[in-house]
């Protein structure tokens, strides 16, 4: 798949798709979207980049092995679950929200961070699987 068009397109598409995935993630609480879809869209972006520029290039771009995203995402989700326990003493996974919405992002609460954790895990899982397999195939 060594096409100039694809390579050019992919290098523009990757940032676009990542921005789009973050957008989907952030609006997930109010409109269709969320961590799962967002994560998958981001993964698709990276896979596209991989097809165009090769695995090594994508690796370099990503800087870390996608496997590291798994523990990060999991701990973030877990921490957001424990936040109410630590702060207000409410039960595990109770939603805690800031009173005023932040511009652009909207209301900020533990659910958002939880969704961010989901996002990271999904990106990590998809990329780990695909990278591992394509590396084997190469």
């Amino acid at each position, binding site marked *: 798949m060594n096409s100039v068009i694809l390579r050019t397109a992919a290098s523009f598409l990757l940032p676009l798709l990542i921005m789009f995935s973050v957008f989907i993630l952030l609006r997930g609480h109010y409109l269709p979207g969320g961590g799962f879809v967002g994560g998958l869209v981001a993964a698709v972006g990276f896979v596209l980049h991989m097809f165009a520029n090769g695995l090594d290039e994508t690796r370099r771009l990503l800087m870390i092995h996608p496997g590291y995203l798994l523990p990060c995402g999991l701990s973030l989700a877990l921490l957001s679950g424990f936040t109410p326990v630590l702060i207000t003493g409410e039960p595990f996974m109770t939603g805690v929200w800031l009173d005023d919405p932040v511009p652009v992002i909207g209301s900020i609460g533990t659910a958002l961070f939880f969704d961010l954790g989901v996002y990271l895990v*999904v990106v990590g899982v998809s990329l780990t699987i695909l990278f591992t397999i394509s590396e084997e195939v190469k």
Partner: protein
Amino acid sequence: MELLLAITIGLLYASGVYMVLRRSMVKLIIGIILIGNGVNFLIFLLGRITKGSTPIISENSDTFLEAYADPVPQALILTAIVISFGLQAFAIVLIKRVYKVLNTDDIDRLSHTEDYDIL
């Protein structure tokens, strides 16, 4: 439409079962995917389908004002879709591994680990 979807789901199940019963491991995975799709659809249909309306509360109100699609099956299916991706990936890699080690993809040749005798 429910009737058509029910028949499609039946077909998904039937084809999935048929593929699972094949001896090739690749077909086994295809069968699992087909059954997985069938299950997702089944849950979706059994939550009763309503045309058009989404389970999203409109911007100006705090609760639903009109009919809405059932959100619970949707939440269930959403996780199921993502999980089945993990399952499929794992199964494919597992089969690749088995093929590499045993040099066969005939499931019937995997029926015994080694010769053993209980008595």
